């Protein structure tokens, strides 16, 4: 069965990579960009760059308008409505660090922060370090056999000392939706703040932060076919007043004298310094492009491709999957074969996949593995990409066994 992608030609880099004999299957790390984004970047730089929220002049007004339009498009993409604000950061990691510093004053020694065992380092280390700074306990929710956060354990571990829950929507290693509604309900029952790391989740399907009901939702542009250097932090109106300003300088200030200053509320108060203007405008163009696609068709394509990948892998002997991947990616190891050796030989054959710990060292350690190979999909991938990968995998395994 062939699974062609009707959107492949919208991403010029795919053809360029193909000319270099490269098959790109590392989309959970970053994605290729649609022509619409390249056009928007070229248009912005070719028609007059200017700083935003500062100048009276016309180029400044145009840049500010395009910048703020992107903010509106992000809000629409997440169906934020009037429920909160969209803050632009420099990435998902910087958004999570902003939260870990901006919320710090709300924690007292002995309070608990709850994360899960599958968190990416970006949603682990900021909380771990906050816990060290304030004498907090970092509670780690365990996973069940399918790689989902164990809800029975969560019900025991989320309690009156829990001040904040920070969990991923979709694991970057296990490729499974996490039971967010139940987890968020547990946290809210104890009046804890809720943070959702949507870095992987936002790329697949559409999500509604109002329906989700989280206090904060974080993602990065570059994984969603947008430019790098931009992250998004959605903050719910009720939670934003509890977020203190973190980085200082530029137009985030309201009044400043030598000894004192006051700062703007969200979003501008949390966007210190000149933001990545072109990238934010580019993200808006990407969202325009994505909004124009038939989302059901995209979902169906991604599901068919994932199925193709899963069945192809399971047909090969000695191959072990991590968890029970549902979508987007599959991580695996091969019995008796070191993942570094396999990665080496896939690289030799022009297959771009990820090997190693996937920025989730504790998770890989819990599987007793030094690393794994991860194949991750995007809407422009097709079954031919996967056939090339399977062929290379077979060649590599033949050499290694």
């Amino acid at each position: 069965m062939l699974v062609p992608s009707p959107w492949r030609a919208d991403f010029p880099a795919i053809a360029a990579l193909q000319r270099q004999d490269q098959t790109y299957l590392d989309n959970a790390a970053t994605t290729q960009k649609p022509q619409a984004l390249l056009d928007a970047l070229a248009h912005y730089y070719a028609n007059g760059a200017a700083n935003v929220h500062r100048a009276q002049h016309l180029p400044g007004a145009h840049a500010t308008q395009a910048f703020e339009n992107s903010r509106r498009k992000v809000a629409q993409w997440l169906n934020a409505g009037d429920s909160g604000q969209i803050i632009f950061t420099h990435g998902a990691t910087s958004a999570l660090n902003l939260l870990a510093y901006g919320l710090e004053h709300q924690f007292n020694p002995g309070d608990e922060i709850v994360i899960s065992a599958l968190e990416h380092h970006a949603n682990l280390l900021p909380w771990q370090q906050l816990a060290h700074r304030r004498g907090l306990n970092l509670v780690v929710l365990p996973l069940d056999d399918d790689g989902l956060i164990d809800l029975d354990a969560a019900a025991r571990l989320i309690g009156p000392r829990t001040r904040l829950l920070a969990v991923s929507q979709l694991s970057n290693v296990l490729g499974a939706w996490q039971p967010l509604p139940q987890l968020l309900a547990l946290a809210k029952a104890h009046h804890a703040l809720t943070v959702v790391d949507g870095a992987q989740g936002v790329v697949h399907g559409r999500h509604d932060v109002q329906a989700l009901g989280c206090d904060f939702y974080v993602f990065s542009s570059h994984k969603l076919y947008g430019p790098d250097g931009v992250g998004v932090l959605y903050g719910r109106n009720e939670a934003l007043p509890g977020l203190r300003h973190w980085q200082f300088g530029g137009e985030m200030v309201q009044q400043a004298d030598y000894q004192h200053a006051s700062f703007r509320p969200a979003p501008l108060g949390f966007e210190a310094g000149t933001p990545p203007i072109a990238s934010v405008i580019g993200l808006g163009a990407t969202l325009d492009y994505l909004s124009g696609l038939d989302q059901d068709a995209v979902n169906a394509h991604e599901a068919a491709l994932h199925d193709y990948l899963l069945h192809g892998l399971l047909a090969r002997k000695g191959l072990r999957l991590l968890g029970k991947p549902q979508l987007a990616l599959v991580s695996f190891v091969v019995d008796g074969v070191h993942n570094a050796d396999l990665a080496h030989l896939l690289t030799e054959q022009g297959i771009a996949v990820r090997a190693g710990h996937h920025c989730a060292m504790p998770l890989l350690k819990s599987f007793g593995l030094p690393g794994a190979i991860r194949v991750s999909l995007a809407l422009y991938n097709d079954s031919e990409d996967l056939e090339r990968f399977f062929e290379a995998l077979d060649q590599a395994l033949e050499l290694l066994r």
Partner: protein
Amino acid sequence: MSLPAEALAALDSFQGAPGWEQRARLLMQWGERLAPLAEADKVEANRVHGCESQVWLVGTLQDGHWQFAASSDARLIRGLVALLLARVNGLSAEELQRVDLPDWFNQLGLSRQLSPSRSNGLNAVLQRMRELAGTR
């Protein structure tokens, strides 16, 4: 400076290997020929960090000449390390300071294994070797 016999043998076989498959086979053969590292040497202090696999490297200066020993749990990096040792073992401290190791892998047709984004660990092994050589 003339090449050690092992290095000449490596050059001969790798320069005659046209494709990635032959190079991979050769790497694995070289890895298998690498003298085993004593279990006592596989300790944290000898671990080379920055590798996807576990790599250990020890070096001793005997009568003014370096002898390195190494091991890895991954086969291809073990082969790369074997090729490295073929080039450097027996060199004097002064010779080791002068040897151009990136050029050595380039001559073997393996320069891509040293590109900055490669996390196979060969760069880290080279770095550790320089540290060991610099502190004696």
